[in-house]
């Protein structure tokens, strides 16, 4: 887990310490089945209490990984998420995260650098004004939360695929990993990274991305559940190793595609 405690410019140390605390074993969070009293009927049928069984949890995780492969097959790299008119943008657009809104990291745009690493030709860090110079486009798409609710937002920025081309990324690599200033990190599959609607977002609506929505950069993926869309991104890494992620490591499905 040391990867998310590397020192990176603009990272809020307080949040990282809090995140480290969250990584300590917490049976009530880690295990799926502790309060699974609803399984009473199954317990009666099998004569044993499978609700305490790690075997059941291991089986669920295996099926979840199988479902990752099924979702990768279902993913059509040319299928675009539906887009909507500006008038349908949800207002006010909700803040959502694993911390409170006033705990979102404060990043100085003048000193901010986006680190680039892994299987790329050019590992030079990018300043914000260099990123802003990339060709940009706007998308109004639906954000679907893993909890079930959905909202429509307007994001403007550069295609991640354009950025990956500029840095000479090996697009045959399996994954792209993101590190964030709020202690969050996650890994996505390369086909999703190259999807035309996968965006390095610099703006929400007509405004520079506010702190609560992920200043200075959010990776917007309308083909993934909301939690797979990292905010306050400080490092991009092209890799063949699945480095996991904040929620994925806690039991959420890895692919989480829409």
């Amino acid at each position, binding site marked *: 887990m040391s990867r998310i405690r590397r020192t990176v410019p603009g990272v809020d140390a307080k949040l990282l310490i809090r995140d480290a605390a969250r990584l300590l074993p917490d049976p009530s969070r880690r295990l799926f089945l502790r309060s699974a009293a609803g399984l009473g009927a199954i317990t009666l049928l099998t004569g044993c209490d499978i609700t305490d069984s790690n075997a059941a949890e291991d089986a669920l995780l295996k099926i979840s990984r199988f*479902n990752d492969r099924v979702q990768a097959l279902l993913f059509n790299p040319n299928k675009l998420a539906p887009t909507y008119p500006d008038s349908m943008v949800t207002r006010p657009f909700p803040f959502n995260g694993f911390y409170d809104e006033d705990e979102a990291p404060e990043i100085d745009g003048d000193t901010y650098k986006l680190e680039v690493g892994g299987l790329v030709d050019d590992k030079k860090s990018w300043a914000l004004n260099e990123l802003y110079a990339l060709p940009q486009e706007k998308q109004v798409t639906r954000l679907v939360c893993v909890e079930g609710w959905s909202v429509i937002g307007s994001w403007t920025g550069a295609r991640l695929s354009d950025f990956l081309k500029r840095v000479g990324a090996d697009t045959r690599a399996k994954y792209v990993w993101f590190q964030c200033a709020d202690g969050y990190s996650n890994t996505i599959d390369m086909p999703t990274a190259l999807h035309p609607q996968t965006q390095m977002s610099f703006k929400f609506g007509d405004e520079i991305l506010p702190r609560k929505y992920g200043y200075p950069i959010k990776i917007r993926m309308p083909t993934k559940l909301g939690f797979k869309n990292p905010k306050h991104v400080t490092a991009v890494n092209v890799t063949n190793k699945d480095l996991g992620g904040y929620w994925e490591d806690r039991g959420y499905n890895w692919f989480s595609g829409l």
Partner: protein
Amino acid sequence: MTAPATPASETSATIHPLWVRITHWVNAIAMLLMIGSGWQIYNASPLPLFKFEFPSAVTLGGWLAGGIAWHLAALWLLVVNGLVYVTLGLATGRFRAKLFPIRPREVVRDLGAALRGRLAHDDLAAYNAVQKLLYLGVICAGIVIVLSGLSIWKPVQFQELTALFGGYDTARYVHFFAMATIVAFLIVHVILALIVPRSLRAMIIGK
């Protein structure tokens, strides 16, 4: 597929072939897993029009991630088993022989008899009109719940299906009401099976 002339208790004819019994009980387990884990997922974000939550004692998975893991695992059991059941039901002619025709007049007559406790159960192999309607109805609810579920799971890849259900947010309500229909059926179904225990025996040993 003709019904025996003598009451079931006096004949050795099989009422439910083995494939019906196996798919019935596999479906029972899959449905309980799907309903319990579905309620867990629902509780993470109750539908705006309802606001209520399911008691945690009847939910499965412990928290949202666990509920999702159970739901998308039991999904395979439900769908594969359901496909086997529907395929064999169509291929063997069982659906046509057992569930059709459904005549409205007979439904009214049999419903009246059922409510007065005068419905005959001499021949468990022949379904009365109310049974036919309920079984056909719950099969349709099963199809709707799977399709609306797929449209919630993949609103980009299956966006045409999602649009058919009125969009993502509306598809969640369709999924919920299909669940409510199935749970209502389940309650009536279990009560009636307990009132006529021979029917439960027939679904276990076939006779």
